[in-house]
């Protein structure tokens, strides 16, 4: 008989929290996937990161409406998980370099982007301090100063300083990379 997750959600005592989680997902998913895309620069990878973030969020905040922190948590988790993903990419790049393997073919969505710029940005983000990279991707993917402050647990007045330093550091990293 019907044992799908969807149906079990509606028939179980946890129905209310599951419905609340779907609502939370629908509100936050576009923000989370945009943050991940800002780091990874590729749709499929960003969607994978967003899925991992919400799997963990469900385990951590089954009733996201009861937590004051669920929204901030998924946003920082998106930045952090995406930054971890490009750290793994560095290992893959090195592996390919050592094995002499070519660059894997890109999908059509990636092909329309400037893949060279994306790769340079990912390398620069990998070298930046984690807090600097996080404030950059949060702010430049639609979060206001107040939302960045909430997500990173800092005062609003401190966001401008963090952002200025991070953007300056990003420029220096890109200038450094362009010399090679």
């Amino acid at each position, binding site marked *: *008989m*019907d044992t*799908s*997750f*969807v*149906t079990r959600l*509606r028939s179980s005592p946890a129905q209310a929290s599951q*419905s*609340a989680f*779907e*609502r939370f*997902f*629908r509100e936050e998913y576009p923000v989370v*996937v*945009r943050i991940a*895309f*800002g*780091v990874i620069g590729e749709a*499929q990878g*960003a*969607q994978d990161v967003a*899925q*991992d973030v919400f*799997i*963990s969020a*469900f385990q*951590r905040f089954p*009733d996201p*409406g*009861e*937590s*004051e*922190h669920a929204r*901030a*948590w998924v946003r*920082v*988790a998106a930045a*952090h998980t995406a930054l971890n993903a490009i750290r793994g990419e560095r290992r893959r790049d090195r592996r390919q370099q050592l094995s002499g393997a070519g660059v894997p073919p890109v*999908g*059509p*969505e990636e*092909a*329309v982007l400037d893949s060279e710029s994306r790769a340079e*940005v990912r390398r620069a983000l990998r070298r930046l301090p*984690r807090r600097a990279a996080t404030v*950059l991707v949060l702010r*430049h*993917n639609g979060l206001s*100063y107040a939302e960045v402050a909430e*997500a*990173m*647990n800092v005062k609003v*007045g*401190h966001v401008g*300083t963090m952002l*200025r330093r991070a*953007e*300056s550091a*990003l420029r220096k990293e*890109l200038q450094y990379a362009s010399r090679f």
Partner: protein
Amino acid sequence: MPHVSSSVLRRLVDEPLAVPDRDRRHLAGCDHCQTESAEAARDAARAARLLGASDQVSDTDLEWILLQDRLEAPGAARRPAVRVPRRLMNVSVGAGTAAAVGVLAVGVAAAAALTTVYAPTHVAPVTLSGSDLRAIENMTHIGTAQLSGELPPSGSRQLAFGDLSWSTAGRTQQVSSIARASAMTGLAFTAPATLPSGVGAPDNIMIQPQVTITMQFGQGAGPGIGGSTLEITLGPAMAVQYGGQSGGSRLTTLAVAAARRPVATSTGASASQLESFLLSRSGLPSGLAQAIRLLGNPAAVLPVPVPPGMWVVRTHIGGAPAVLVTASTAFASGVVWEGSDGVVHAVGGLLDREDVLNVARQVG
């Protein structure tokens, strides 16, 4: 007066009205701060250009379905958790307040107003006779000829149990390349590397933007259904048609198609209530009603309509259940399956079943 702080110079880029007048006055007369301000603006613009994701396309409905699939999968609870370093964020979980409980109550009420009632994960065949098709036409007032391409981009029909309306995000159109179709639909498309004998190059690539169908049930439609709204989204979809090898013929020998799985949401009615409603319609042939009942879980099965007289075989493509249909003359075959990514694939042509399956295995 000391120079304007870097924090204020940065905020000037995003929120100039939030900068105090005394800082503005200093900036107007200070070359050093003007230089710093210009550099802050350039750095901010560069970061926005490089890190912004304005071209990101995401389908929240599909991703919600995929998330449910993953949560449902055995071992989901043991997956490595995403962690946020404490130095980045120091939060305590479970600090619920009376206000938060109030928000939750409102949230539950809102969520209950819109629930996903149909999210198919696999395909299954349903044989449709000519009289079944006529019965569906009578119930929906939409003929099969209209469904095959003559339906206007938007419109509505008044049915016995409510109002049916539909709209599309754009017309069906021919595009220049598979990459273009893939980019426009957001569908990852793998073209078969090895084609069956007699099949030529792609000669027609089509896309169909997403279609949204809304059924507004009348108050008297039945328990749980009356007054509710059912919204179904179909697509986007793309299809690649291949010509013959001889070159002179425009005959399509092979077609490969992909589409996002259909998703339905309802403002109140559950999947089982909707199924009961559908099966109790007086115009629905009893044989078709029985076939729908035999599909099992109404929320998880995508029925593949099969004309009478075709041979149907259940098989697998890439581990996913598939429906293989062959004409009794064996001059034409087709296979339909749903991948784990929530994309429904179809391969068909004037080919025998082995050729169709060979192509399908390359695509899936």
